[in-house]
């Protein structure tokens, strides 16, 4: 059971990576360089949209680019 849960998590790892890594990295990079997000979004929300979408793309297509 435990192994199955881990396997499922790993299967969704690109998406989780988008949310867990790319999103906060994007937000902190924007804050560091004083770049504001479009449409009045906060940098974290923008990071979540970018990271989530990119991770989902990687999950579906099997590659990041």
């Amino acid at each position, binding site marked *: 059971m435990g*192994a199955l849960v*881990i*396997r499922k*998590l*790993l299967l969704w*790892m*690109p998406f*989780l*990576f988008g949310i*867990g*890594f790319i*999103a*906060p*990295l994007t*937000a*902190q*990079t924007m804050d*560091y360089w004083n770049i504001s997000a479009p449409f009045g979004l906060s940098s974290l929300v923008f990071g979540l949209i970018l990271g989530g979408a990119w991770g989902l793309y*990687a*999950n579906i*297509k*099997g*590659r*990041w680019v």
Partner: protein
Amino acid sequence: MDRPIDDLTREETHDDLPLGGEAGLIEGGVESGAADRSAFEWRKAPELDRHVRIRLRKDEREIAARWMADPKQMRIYTVVTLGCFAFWVALFPLCMMDIVPLWFGFAFSTFIAAVGYVPSHEAMHHNIGRLGTKYHFWNEAVGQVATLILIFPFSMARLMHMHHHYHCNHPENDPDYTDGADNWWKAWIKTWLNRQPGADGSIHHYKRCLERIGTPEAHIALRDTMLLQLGSMFFMFALCWSGYAFEAAFLFWLPRHLGLSYIRYWLSWAPHHPRDGLDRYTNTRVFRTWVGHWMSLGMQYHIVHHLYPGIPNHATKYAYYEMKPILEARGVDCTPL
């Protein structure tokens, strides 16, 4: 001695040498016909008279015996590896508190990610401490920590590396066969492509190999890999969401990718290109590179390692020059060095 002095190839296990030691770790049996099914002609070492072969092998073994790993001399590997690992772990709080600049942490982490495979590799072959000796604990300790930055558990690394030795260049059974590429720049690109989520290369290919092997050791390696991958990812996620995304990126994520590409290129593609030989004298090539001995991690002399894995990496150069006349007699192209 706890294992045969030299590496065993498929042909020899059917010939005059027993299967044992390290080879016992590996999936047994030989699948016939890889060479027969291949679309191209496999390079073969020249046929020699049996008496000549025996004499050459005897001379070869005498030279190899002089360069085998001495556990006392190998202690430096243990000290440096454990020291570097401890410093890498310490870099996280040191960089978070701005005691050490992040650029330095990034440079150091990238260095140990690229070079850390070398001591791990020695540990895979028990060169730091043989089984049953007091040094064996340190051998395993070095193996366990050296490639953590690569998210590459020792159990998987050892099993896959033994498999690579036993099935070197075999299209289906050599776990590193997917590193093959036509030229150097394609090889660099492939190191990255092979790590894509849907690719069948790198660690994805290793997982498939382990599932196919199906031994208890393979199941342990698969379990370790899953746990390490998951643990590492959540460690990075926790750092990022705590406001330390730069530290996660420059001390772990980016060094790992740079290190993996460097290792894949220099330790897999460069010494085995073009992967057109299956026997012990043709499965590895001797080559010269402008980056030199240290930057190529001593891989120019990788043939010595495949012949005698008990010779540590730093000694393969010296063993090679002593063995050179024998290797030439065996048909190895030694002209580059």
